[in-house]
Protein backbone atom coordinates (compact mmCIF):
# COMPACT_ATOMS: atom_id res chain seq x y z
CA UNK A 1 0.00 0.00 0.00
CA UNK A 2 1.35 3.43 -0.96
CA UNK A 3 0.43 6.30 1.31
CA UNK A 4 1.19 9.82 0.17
CA UNK A 5 0.75 12.68 2.62
CA UNK A 6 0.86 16.22 1.31
CA UNK A 7 1.94 18.58 4.04
CA UNK A 8 4.23 17.92 6.95
CA UNK A 9 2.75 19.58 9.98
CA UNK A 10 0.80 18.32 12.94
CA UNK A 11 -2.02 16.70 10.94
CA UNK A 12 0.37 14.73 8.73
CA UNK A 13 2.59 13.56 11.58
CA UNK A 14 -0.43 12.33 13.49
CA UNK A 15 -1.69 10.65 10.33
CA UNK A 16 1.59 8.73 10.17
CA UNK A 17 1.00 7.49 13.71
CA UNK A 18 -2.56 6.56 12.81
CA UNK A 19 -1.48 4.64 9.70
CA UNK A 20 1.21 2.73 11.57
CA UNK A 21 -1.25 1.60 14.24
CA UNK A 22 -2.98 -0.37 11.49
CA UNK A 23 -0.31 -0.96 8.83
CA UNK A 24 3.33 -1.46 9.77
CA UNK A 25 4.58 -2.20 6.27
CA UNK A 26 2.99 0.16 3.73
CA UNK A 27 5.15 2.83 2.10
CA UNK A 28 4.55 6.29 3.51
CA UNK A 29 5.79 9.38 1.67
CA UNK A 30 5.40 12.91 2.99
CA UNK A 31 5.66 15.79 0.56
CA UNK A 32 6.54 19.06 2.27
CA UNK A 33 6.76 22.47 0.63
CA UNK A 34 8.73 23.72 3.61
CA UNK A 35 12.35 22.80 4.19
CA UNK A 36 11.83 21.73 7.79
CA UNK A 37 10.68 18.62 9.51
CA UNK A 38 7.34 19.07 11.21
CA UNK A 39 7.07 21.69 13.92
CA UNK A 40 4.08 22.98 15.80
CA UNK A 41 3.26 26.24 14.04
CA UNK A 42 2.40 28.08 17.27
CA UNK A 43 6.02 27.56 18.32
CA UNK A 44 7.27 30.25 15.98
CA UNK A 45 6.44 33.04 18.41
CA UNK A 46 8.40 31.27 21.15
CA UNK A 47 11.30 30.88 18.72
CA UNK A 48 11.20 34.57 17.82
CA UNK A 49 11.22 35.44 21.50
CA UNK A 50 14.27 33.26 21.99
CA UNK A 51 12.51 30.89 24.38
CA UNK A 52 12.75 28.03 21.90
CA UNK A 53 15.92 27.30 19.94
CA UNK A 54 16.20 25.82 16.45
CA UNK A 55 16.97 22.37 17.81
CA UNK A 56 13.81 22.44 19.95
CA UNK A 57 11.48 23.23 17.06
CA UNK A 58 10.85 19.71 15.74
CA UNK A 59 7.45 18.33 16.74
CA UNK A 60 8.86 14.82 16.90
CA UNK A 61 12.49 13.74 17.20
CA UNK A 62 14.47 13.20 13.99
CA UNK A 63 14.28 9.46 14.66
CA UNK A 64 10.50 9.60 14.22
CA UNK A 65 10.62 9.37 10.44
CA UNK A 66 13.02 6.42 10.55
CA UNK A 67 11.16 4.60 13.25
CA UNK A 68 7.85 4.97 11.42
CA UNK A 69 9.50 4.26 8.07
CA UNK A 70 8.48 7.50 6.42
CA UNK A 71 10.10 8.88 3.30
CA UNK A 72 10.11 12.68 3.46
CA UNK A 73 10.49 14.94 0.46
CA UNK A 74 11.37 18.37 1.85
CA UNK A 75 11.09 21.54 -0.20
CA UNK A 76 8.92 19.79 -2.78
CA UNK A 77 5.53 21.12 -3.69
CA UNK A 78 2.66 18.97 -4.90
CA UNK A 79 1.13 20.74 -7.88
CA UNK A 80 -1.58 18.41 -9.12
CA UNK A 81 -3.66 15.46 -8.03
CA UNK A 82 -4.88 13.09 -10.71
CA UNK A 83 -7.50 10.92 -9.04
CA UNK A 84 -8.09 8.76 -12.11
CA UNK A 85 -4.46 7.75 -12.39
CA UNK A 86 -4.13 7.91 -8.57
CA UNK A 87 -1.02 10.03 -8.85
CA UNK A 88 0.31 13.24 -7.35
CA UNK A 89 2.50 15.44 -9.52
CA UNK A 90 5.31 17.40 -7.92
CA UNK A 91 6.93 20.69 -8.87
CA UNK A 92 10.01 18.94 -10.24
CA UNK A 93 7.95 17.11 -12.85
CA UNK A 94 8.00 13.76 -11.06
CA UNK A 95 4.91 11.99 -9.84
CA UNK A 96 4.02 9.73 -6.97
CA UNK A 97 1.46 6.96 -7.27
CA UNK A 98 -0.83 6.55 -4.29
CA UNK A 99 -3.33 4.09 -2.95
CA UNK A 100 -4.23 6.46 -0.14
CA UNK A 101 -3.68 10.18 -0.20
CA UNK A 102 -3.88 12.72 2.63
CA UNK A 103 -4.38 16.39 1.87
CA UNK A 104 -2.92 18.14 4.90
CA UNK A 105 -1.92 21.33 3.15
CA UNK A 106 -3.08 23.64 5.91
CA UNK A 107 -3.82 27.28 5.27
CA UNK A 108 -2.02 30.43 4.34
CA UNK A 109 -2.34 33.97 5.59
CA UNK A 110 -5.12 36.00 4.09
CA UNK A 111 -3.77 39.32 2.86
CA UNK A 112 -6.40 41.76 1.65
CA UNK A 113 -5.70 44.17 -1.17
CA UNK A 114 -4.36 47.36 0.40
CA UNK A 115 -2.95 50.31 -1.51
CA UNK A 116 0.81 50.19 -1.60
CA UNK A 117 1.09 46.79 0.02
CA UNK A 118 3.81 44.77 -1.72
CA UNK A 119 5.34 41.41 -0.79
CA UNK A 120 8.44 43.31 0.36
CA UNK A 121 6.85 45.67 2.83
CA UNK A 122 4.87 43.40 5.11
CA UNK A 123 5.27 40.19 7.06
CA UNK A 124 2.93 37.35 7.82
CA UNK A 125 3.23 35.14 10.88
CA UNK A 126 2.33 31.56 10.12
CA UNK A 127 5.51 29.63 9.47
CA UNK A 128 9.12 29.29 10.53
CA UNK A 129 10.39 31.30 7.58
CA UNK A 130 8.07 34.18 8.55
CA UNK A 131 9.62 34.21 12.01
CA UNK A 132 13.13 34.10 10.55
CA UNK A 133 12.40 37.07 8.31
CA UNK A 134 11.00 38.97 11.26
CA UNK A 135 13.97 38.15 13.45
CA UNK A 136 16.26 39.95 11.02
CA UNK A 137 14.37 43.24 11.50
CA UNK A 138 12.91 42.98 15.00
CA UNK A 139 15.51 45.04 16.78
CA UNK A 140 15.02 46.88 20.08
CA UNK A 141 13.49 50.33 19.75
CA UNK A 142 11.88 49.67 16.39
CA UNK A 143 8.20 50.14 15.83
CA UNK A 144 5.82 47.51 14.58
CA UNK A 145 2.22 47.71 13.51
CA UNK A 146 0.28 44.48 13.60
CA UNK A 147 -2.91 44.32 11.59
CA UNK A 148 -5.26 41.95 13.37
CA UNK A 149 -5.60 41.29 17.10
CA UNK A 150 -6.56 37.62 16.97
CA UNK A 151 -4.38 34.79 18.26
CA UNK A 152 -1.78 35.16 15.49
CA UNK A 153 -1.51 38.93 15.88
CA UNK A 154 -1.39 38.64 19.66
CA UNK A 155 1.41 36.06 19.58
CA UNK A 156 3.34 38.18 17.07
CA UNK A 157 2.78 41.12 19.41
CA UNK A 158 4.19 39.17 22.35
CA UNK A 159 7.34 38.01 20.63
CA UNK A 160 8.05 41.46 19.17
CA UNK A 161 7.38 43.17 22.50
CA UNK A 162 9.75 40.73 24.20
CA UNK A 163 12.37 41.82 21.70
CA UNK A 164 11.75 45.42 22.84
CA UNK A 165 9.97 46.41 19.68
CA UNK A 166 7.21 48.98 20.23
CA UNK A 167 3.97 47.37 19.11
CA UNK A 168 0.71 48.84 17.90
CA UNK A 169 -2.22 46.51 17.30
CA UNK A 170 -4.82 47.59 14.76
CA UNK A 171 -8.07 45.67 14.85
CA UNK A 172 -11.14 46.12 12.68
CA UNK A 173 -13.57 44.72 15.27
CA UNK A 174 -14.67 46.61 18.36
CA UNK A 175 -12.41 44.48 20.54
CA UNK A 176 -9.39 42.23 20.47
CA UNK A 177 -9.80 38.52 19.65
CA UNK A 178 -13.53 39.06 19.19
CA UNK A 179 -14.48 35.44 18.39
CA UNK A 180 -13.20 34.28 21.79
CA UNK A 181 -13.42 37.27 24.13
CA UNK A 182 -16.62 39.02 25.13
CA UNK A 183 -16.44 42.83 25.53
CA UNK A 184 -15.72 42.70 29.27
CA UNK A 185 -12.92 40.16 28.90
CA UNK A 186 -11.50 41.99 25.89
CA UNK A 187 -11.41 45.22 27.93
CA UNK A 188 -9.58 43.44 30.71
CA UNK A 189 -7.03 42.00 28.30
CA UNK A 190 -6.64 45.31 26.50
CA UNK A 191 -5.99 47.14 29.79
CA UNK A 192 -3.41 44.51 30.66
CA UNK A 193 -1.68 45.02 27.33
CA UNK A 194 -1.81 48.80 27.48
CA UNK A 195 -0.19 48.66 30.90
CA UNK A 196 2.62 46.73 29.20
CA UNK A 197 3.05 49.52 26.68
CA UNK A 198 1.13 48.07 23.75
CA UNK A 199 -0.92 50.53 21.69
CA UNK A 200 -4.30 49.26 20.59
CA UNK A 201 -6.48 50.85 17.95
CA UNK A 202 -9.89 49.22 17.60
CA UNK A 203 -12.56 49.78 14.95
CA UNK A 204 -9.80 50.60 12.57
CA UNK A 205 -7.88 49.14 9.68
CA UNK A 206 -5.11 49.84 7.25
CA UNK A 207 -6.03 51.63 4.03
CA UNK A 208 -2.66 52.38 2.48
CA UNK A 209 1.05 51.83 2.85
CA UNK A 210 3.72 54.16 1.53
CA UNK A 211 7.47 54.00 1.76
CA UNK A 212 8.74 56.75 4.06
CA UNK A 213 12.21 57.91 5.01
CA UNK A 214 14.85 55.77 6.72
CA UNK A 215 13.25 52.52 5.66
CA UNK A 216 10.09 53.38 7.52
CA UNK A 217 6.58 52.85 6.28
CA UNK A 218 3.86 55.45 6.45
CA UNK A 219 0.60 53.75 7.23
CA UNK A 220 -2.80 55.34 6.73
CA UNK A 221 -5.70 53.99 8.70
CA UNK A 222 -9.40 54.16 7.99
CA UNK A 223 -9.82 56.52 10.95
CA UNK A 224 -7.45 58.93 9.15
CA UNK A 225 -4.85 58.16 11.75
CA UNK A 226 -1.31 58.08 10.36
CA UNK A 227 1.29 55.72 11.76
CA UNK A 228 4.96 55.32 10.96
CA UNK A 229 6.51 51.93 11.49
CA UNK A 230 9.54 49.86 10.65
CA UNK A 231 7.61 46.62 10.59
CA UNK A 232 4.13 45.76 9.37
CA UNK A 233 2.66 42.36 10.21
CA UNK A 234 -0.57 41.25 8.54
CA UNK A 235 -2.36 38.72 10.77
CA UNK A 236 -6.04 38.83 9.96
CA UNK A 237 -6.74 35.22 9.20
CA UNK A 238 -5.89 32.13 7.19
CA UNK A 239 -7.39 30.62 4.08
CA UNK A 240 -7.30 26.87 3.46
CA UNK A 241 -4.87 25.69 0.78
CA UNK A 242 -7.36 23.87 -1.45
CA UNK A 243 -5.77 24.46 -4.88
CA UNK A 244 -4.88 20.80 -5.35
CA UNK A 245 -8.53 19.86 -5.08
CA UNK A 246 -9.94 22.59 -7.28
CA UNK A 247 -12.18 21.39 -10.10
CA UNK A 248 -11.97 17.73 -9.17
CA UNK A 249 -15.34 16.02 -9.72
CA UNK A 250 -16.75 14.67 -6.48
CA UNK A 251 -14.95 17.23 -4.34
CA UNK A 252 -16.85 20.06 -2.67
CA UNK A 253 -14.99 23.17 -1.65
CA UNK A 254 -16.53 25.58 0.78
CA UNK A 255 -13.48 27.66 1.50
CA UNK A 256 -11.96 24.46 2.89
CA UNK A 257 -12.59 21.00 1.51
CA UNK A 258 -15.79 19.35 2.66
CA UNK A 259 -15.13 15.92 4.18
CA UNK A 260 -17.35 13.03 5.18
CA UNK A 261 -17.46 11.71 8.76
CA UNK A 262 -14.51 9.45 7.89
CA UNK A 263 -12.56 12.49 6.59
CA UNK A 264 -12.72 11.31 2.98
CA UNK A 265 -12.95 14.19 0.48
CA UNK A 266 -15.26 12.44 -1.98
CA UNK A 267 -12.56 10.73 -4.05
CA UNK A 268 -11.55 7.10 -3.62
CA UNK A 269 -8.70 6.83 -1.12
CA UNK A 270 -8.31 10.58 -0.67
CA UNK A 271 -8.62 12.10 2.80
CA UNK A 272 -8.02 15.50 4.37
CA UNK A 273 -7.12 16.72 7.83
CA UNK A 274 -6.26 19.96 9.56
CA UNK A 275 -6.74 23.57 8.53
CA UNK A 276 -7.55 22.64 4.92
CA UNK A 277 -10.83 21.07 6.02
CA UNK A 278 -14.00 23.16 5.68
CA UNK A 279 -15.59 24.29 8.91
CA UNK A 280 -12.61 23.20 10.94
CA UNK A 281 -11.33 25.77 13.38
CA UNK A 282 -7.70 26.39 12.41
CA UNK A 283 -6.51 25.03 15.73
CA UNK A 284 -3.74 22.58 16.42
CA UNK A 285 -5.52 20.06 18.67
CA UNK A 286 -8.23 19.65 16.08
CA UNK A 287 -5.68 19.12 13.31
CA UNK A 288 -3.84 16.53 15.37
CA UNK A 289 -6.94 14.52 16.13
CA UNK A 290 -8.19 14.67 12.56
CA UNK A 291 -4.79 13.58 11.30
CA UNK A 292 -4.79 10.57 13.61
CA UNK A 293 -8.28 9.50 12.53
CA UNK A 294 -7.63 10.12 8.82
CA UNK A 295 -4.46 8.03 9.10
CA UNK A 296 -6.28 5.15 10.72
CA UNK A 297 -9.03 5.27 8.10
CA UNK A 298 -6.48 5.38 5.29
CA UNK A 299 -5.04 2.16 6.68
CA UNK A 300 -8.40 0.41 6.78
CA UNK A 301 -10.04 1.48 10.04
CA UNK A 302 -13.58 2.81 9.98
CA UNK A 303 -13.52 5.64 12.45
CA UNK A 304 -15.72 8.67 12.57
CA UNK A 305 -14.44 12.13 13.36
CA UNK A 306 -16.73 13.75 15.86
CA UNK A 307 -16.17 17.49 15.54
CA UNK A 308 -14.84 19.03 18.72
CA UNK A 309 -15.95 22.41 19.94
CA UNK A 310 -13.16 24.87 19.21
CA UNK A 311 -10.81 25.44 22.09
CA UNK A 312 -7.67 27.41 22.45
CA UNK A 313 -5.09 28.19 25.08
CA UNK A 314 -3.27 31.42 24.47
CA UNK A 315 -0.72 33.10 26.68
CA UNK A 316 1.09 36.36 26.17
CA UNK A 317 3.23 38.61 28.36
CA UNK A 318 2.29 36.54 31.40
CA UNK A 319 -1.47 36.48 30.83
CA UNK A 320 -3.06 33.09 30.21
CA UNK A 321 -6.37 32.61 28.43
CA UNK A 322 -8.30 29.44 27.75
CA UNK A 323 -11.36 29.74 25.54
CA UNK A 324 -13.77 26.86 25.14
CA UNK A 325 -16.65 26.62 22.70
CA UNK A 326 -18.88 29.67 22.57
CA UNK A 327 -16.71 31.66 24.97
CA UNK A 328 -17.63 35.14 23.73
CA UNK A 329 -21.38 34.63 24.15
CA UNK A 330 -23.43 37.36 25.80
CA UNK A 331 -27.12 38.09 25.89
CA UNK A 332 -30.38 36.78 27.21
CA UNK A 333 -30.46 33.46 25.43
CA UNK A 334 -27.64 32.24 27.65
CA UNK A 335 -27.14 31.89 31.34
CA UNK A 336 -23.77 33.28 32.26
CA UNK A 337 -21.85 32.40 35.42
CA UNK A 338 -18.95 34.65 36.24
CA UNK A 339 -16.11 35.37 38.60
CA UNK A 340 -14.16 38.54 37.94
CA UNK A 341 -11.18 40.02 39.75
CA UNK A 342 -9.83 42.86 37.62
CA UNK A 343 -6.95 43.60 40.01
CA UNK A 344 -5.55 40.13 39.38
CA UNK A 345 -6.65 40.14 35.73
CA UNK A 346 -8.76 37.11 36.58
CA UNK A 347 -11.90 36.42 34.61
CA UNK A 348 -13.81 33.17 34.71
CA UNK A 349 -17.02 32.79 32.80
CA UNK A 350 -19.18 29.85 31.89
CA UNK A 351 -21.89 29.98 29.25
CA UNK A 352 -24.93 27.79 29.79
CA UNK A 353 -27.79 27.09 27.45
CA UNK A 354 -30.65 24.73 28.29
CA UNK A 355 -28.75 23.64 31.39
CA UNK A 356 -25.76 22.59 29.38
CA UNK A 357 -22.37 24.19 29.16
CA UNK A 358 -21.72 25.62 25.70
CA UNK A 359 -18.77 27.87 26.38
CA UNK A 360 -16.13 28.89 28.86
CA UNK A 361 -13.55 31.60 29.18
CA UNK A 362 -10.81 31.44 31.76
CA UNK A 363 -8.24 34.16 32.19
CA UNK A 364 -5.35 33.80 34.62
CA UNK A 365 -7.09 31.10 36.64
CA UNK A 366 -7.17 28.15 34.33
CA UNK A 367 -6.89 25.15 36.62
CA UNK A 368 -8.86 22.12 35.52
CA UNK A 369 -10.21 23.89 32.43
CA UNK A 370 -10.47 20.54 30.64
CA UNK A 371 -13.31 19.51 32.94
CA UNK A 372 -15.42 22.26 31.41
CA UNK A 373 -14.39 21.18 27.93
CA UNK A 374 -15.50 17.66 28.77
CA UNK A 375 -18.91 18.95 29.86
CA UNK A 376 -19.25 20.93 26.63
CA UNK A 377 -18.21 18.09 24.34
CA UNK A 378 -20.34 15.49 26.10
CA UNK A 379 -23.36 17.79 26.42
CA UNK A 380 -23.83 16.85 30.06
CA UNK A 381 -26.73 18.49 31.92
CA UNK A 382 -25.16 20.57 34.66
CA UNK A 383 -28.28 21.45 36.64
CA UNK A 384 -27.48 19.11 39.57
CA UNK A 385 -24.08 20.72 40.18
CA UNK A 386 -24.40 24.12 38.57
CA UNK A 387 -23.64 26.01 41.76
CA UNK A 388 -20.35 24.16 42.11
CA UNK A 389 -19.07 24.97 38.64
CA UNK A 390 -17.11 28.08 39.57
CA UNK A 391 -16.20 27.08 43.10
CA UNK A 392 -12.52 26.59 43.82
CA UNK A 393 -12.99 22.92 44.68
CA UNK A 394 -14.89 22.14 41.50
CA UNK A 395 -13.71 18.79 40.24
CA UNK A 396 -14.65 15.35 39.01
CA UNK A 397 -16.49 14.68 42.24
CA UNK A 398 -18.83 17.55 41.44
CA UNK A 399 -20.14 15.51 38.51
CA UNK A 400 -22.94 12.97 38.97
CA UNK A 401 -21.56 9.82 40.55
CA UNK A 402 -22.10 7.63 37.49
CA UNK A 403 -19.90 9.97 35.49
CA UNK A 404 -17.01 10.30 37.91
CA UNK A 405 -17.06 6.57 38.57
CA UNK A 406 -16.86 5.91 34.86
CA UNK A 407 -14.11 8.48 34.36
CA UNK A 408 -11.94 7.13 37.17
CA UNK A 409 -12.32 3.59 35.87
CA UNK A 410 -10.80 4.49 32.49
Amino acid at each position, binding site marked *: MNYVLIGNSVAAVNAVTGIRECDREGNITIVSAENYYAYGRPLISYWLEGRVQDE*EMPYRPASFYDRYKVHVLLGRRAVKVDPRAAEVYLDDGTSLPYDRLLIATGGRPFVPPINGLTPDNYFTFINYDDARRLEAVAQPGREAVILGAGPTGLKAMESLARRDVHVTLVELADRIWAPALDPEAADLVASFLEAKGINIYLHDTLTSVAQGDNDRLNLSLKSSRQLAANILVVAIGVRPNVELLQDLPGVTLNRGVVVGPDLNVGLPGVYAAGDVVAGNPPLLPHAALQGKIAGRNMAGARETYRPLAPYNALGFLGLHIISLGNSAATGDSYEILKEVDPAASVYRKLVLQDNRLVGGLLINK*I*DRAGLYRYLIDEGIAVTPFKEQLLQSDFG*LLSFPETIWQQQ*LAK
Partner: protein
Amino acid sequence: MKKVYARPAYCMNCHLCEVNCIVAHSQSHDLFRAYKRENLRDTNRVLVEERLPLSVAVQCRHCDDPACVAGCIAGAMIKDPATGIVYCQEEKCVGCWTCIASCPFGAIRPGEKNGRPVPYKCDLCREEDEPACVASCPNRALVFAERGVGA
Protein backbone atom coordinates in the same frame (compact mmCIF):
# COMPACT_ATOMS: atom_id res chain seq x y z
CA MET B 1 -1.18 -1.12 30.50
CA LYS B 2 -0.99 -0.83 34.25
CA LYS B 3 -2.57 2.32 35.62
CA VAL B 4 -3.42 3.69 39.02
CA TYR B 5 -7.03 3.11 40.00
CA ALA B 6 -8.68 4.86 42.88
CA ARG B 7 -11.02 3.10 45.30
CA PRO B 8 -12.93 5.96 46.91
CA ALA B 9 -14.49 3.67 49.51
CA TYR B 10 -11.02 3.13 50.97
CA CYS B 11 -9.74 6.70 50.72
CA MET B 12 -9.17 8.24 54.15
CA ASN B 13 -8.50 11.71 52.78
CA CYS B 14 -4.98 11.67 54.28
CA HIS B 15 -3.35 13.26 51.18
CA LEU B 16 -0.26 11.09 51.66
CA CYS B 17 -0.40 10.27 47.93
CA GLU B 18 0.08 13.96 47.20
CA VAL B 19 2.94 14.26 49.66
CA ASN B 20 4.72 11.21 48.31
CA CYS B 21 4.12 12.28 44.72
CA ILE B 22 5.92 15.53 45.49
CA VAL B 23 8.82 13.71 47.13
CA ALA B 24 9.09 11.24 44.26
CA HIS B 25 9.36 14.12 41.79
CA SER B 26 11.83 16.10 43.89
CA GLN B 27 15.55 16.39 43.39
CA SER B 28 16.38 15.13 46.86
CA HIS B 29 13.76 12.38 47.19
CA ASP B 30 13.63 13.43 50.81
CA LEU B 31 10.45 14.63 52.46
CA PHE B 32 12.02 17.33 54.59
CA ARG B 33 14.25 18.71 51.86
CA ALA B 34 11.51 18.57 49.22
CA TYR B 35 9.18 20.67 51.34
CA LYS B 36 11.62 22.94 53.13
CA ARG B 37 14.50 23.42 50.71
CA GLU B 38 13.13 22.68 47.28
CA ASN B 39 9.94 24.59 47.93
CA LEU B 40 7.79 21.99 46.19
CA ARG B 41 4.57 22.46 48.12
CA ASP B 42 1.53 22.23 45.81
CA THR B 43 3.44 20.56 42.98
CA ASN B 44 1.62 17.24 43.40
CA ARG B 45 0.64 15.42 40.24
CA VAL B 46 -2.16 13.53 41.93
CA LEU B 47 -4.99 15.54 43.42
CA VAL B 48 -7.20 14.43 46.28
CA GLU B 49 -10.66 15.74 45.65
CA GLU B 50 -12.96 16.12 48.63
CA ARG B 51 -16.69 16.21 48.81
CA LEU B 52 -16.78 15.00 52.37
CA PRO B 53 -17.32 12.38 53.54
CA LEU B 54 -16.23 11.32 50.07
CA SER B 55 -12.68 11.78 48.90
CA VAL B 56 -10.74 10.36 45.99
CA ALA B 57 -7.32 10.77 44.40
CA VAL B 58 -7.50 11.85 40.76
CA GLN B 59 -4.65 11.55 38.33
CA CYS B 60 -3.85 11.11 34.64
CA ARG B 61 -5.67 8.19 33.01
CA HIS B 62 -2.91 7.71 30.40
CA CYS B 63 -5.60 7.66 27.72
CA ASP B 64 -5.39 5.58 24.56
CA ASP B 65 -5.83 8.76 22.54
CA PRO B 66 -4.61 11.44 24.91
CA ALA B 67 -6.10 14.85 24.18
CA CYS B 68 -3.13 16.50 25.92
CA VAL B 69 -0.73 14.87 23.46
CA ALA B 70 -2.90 15.86 20.50
CA GLY B 71 -3.07 19.42 21.81
CA CYS B 72 0.59 19.95 22.66
CA ILE B 73 1.96 22.65 20.37
CA ALA B 74 5.58 21.84 21.13
CA GLY B 75 5.46 18.08 20.81
CA ALA B 76 6.52 18.00 24.46
CA MET B 77 3.70 15.81 25.69
CA ILE B 78 4.02 12.28 24.38
CA LYS B 79 2.62 8.84 24.94
CA ASP B 80 5.49 6.39 25.16
CA PRO B 81 4.63 3.76 22.55
CA ALA B 82 6.40 1.05 24.52
CA THR B 83 4.90 1.65 27.98
CA GLY B 84 1.75 3.65 27.23
CA ILE B 85 2.83 6.25 29.79
CA VAL B 86 1.83 9.80 28.92
CA TYR B 87 4.45 12.26 30.09
CA CYS B 88 5.82 15.68 29.34
CA GLN B 89 9.36 16.17 28.10
CA GLU B 90 9.64 19.14 30.37
CA GLU B 91 12.59 20.74 28.58
CA LYS B 92 10.35 21.15 25.50
CA CYS B 93 7.34 22.64 27.28
CA VAL B 94 6.59 26.30 26.50
CA GLY B 95 3.75 26.68 28.98
CA CYS B 96 0.91 27.38 26.53
CA TRP B 97 -1.32 25.14 28.73
CA THR B 98 -3.29 23.64 25.87
CA CYS B 99 -2.82 20.38 27.79
CA ILE B 100 -4.81 21.82 30.67
CA ALA B 101 -7.64 22.82 28.37
CA SER B 102 -7.49 19.37 26.75
CA CYS B 103 -7.60 17.00 29.73
CA PRO B 104 -11.14 15.74 30.39
CA PHE B 105 -10.14 14.67 33.91
CA GLY B 106 -8.61 17.97 34.96
CA ALA B 107 -5.52 15.91 35.71
CA ILE B 108 -2.92 18.45 34.57
CA ARG B 109 -2.11 21.63 36.45
CA PRO B 110 0.03 24.58 35.39
CA GLY B 111 3.29 24.81 37.26
CA GLU B 112 6.88 25.87 37.04
CA LYS B 113 10.34 24.70 37.96
CA ASN B 114 13.40 26.94 37.96
CA GLY B 115 11.46 29.66 36.19
CA ARG B 116 10.38 27.31 33.42
CA PRO B 117 6.83 26.08 32.83
CA VAL B 118 6.07 22.52 33.91
CA PRO B 119 2.73 20.82 33.62
CA TYR B 120 2.13 18.91 36.83
CA LYS B 121 0.80 15.57 35.70
CA CYS B 122 1.19 11.95 36.71
CA ASP B 123 3.95 10.09 34.86
CA LEU B 124 3.29 6.87 36.81
CA CYS B 125 6.77 7.44 38.35
CA ARG B 126 8.00 5.94 35.13
CA GLU B 127 11.51 5.24 36.43
CA GLU B 128 10.11 3.17 39.29
CA ASP B 129 8.38 -0.21 39.53
CA GLU B 130 5.39 1.22 41.32
CA PRO B 131 4.08 4.79 41.51
CA ALA B 132 4.85 6.53 44.79
CA CYS B 133 1.20 7.35 45.45
CA VAL B 134 0.29 3.67 45.32
CA ALA B 135 3.28 2.56 47.37
CA SER B 136 2.45 5.04 50.10
CA CYS B 137 -1.32 4.69 50.29
CA PRO B 138 -1.94 3.40 53.82
CA ASN B 139 -5.34 1.91 53.10
CA ARG B 140 -4.81 0.58 49.57
CA ALA B 141 -7.21 3.15 48.20
CA LEU B 142 -4.92 3.36 45.18
CA VAL B 143 -3.94 0.26 43.28
CA PHE B 144 -1.61 -0.22 40.36
CA ALA B 145 -3.33 -2.66 38.08
CA GLU B 146 -3.93 -3.75 34.53
CA ARG B 147 -7.57 -2.62 34.55
CA GLY B 148 -10.25 -1.09 36.72
CA VAL B 149 -10.89 -2.93 39.94
CA GLY B 150 -14.07 -1.15 40.79
CA ALA B 151 -14.70 1.63 43.18
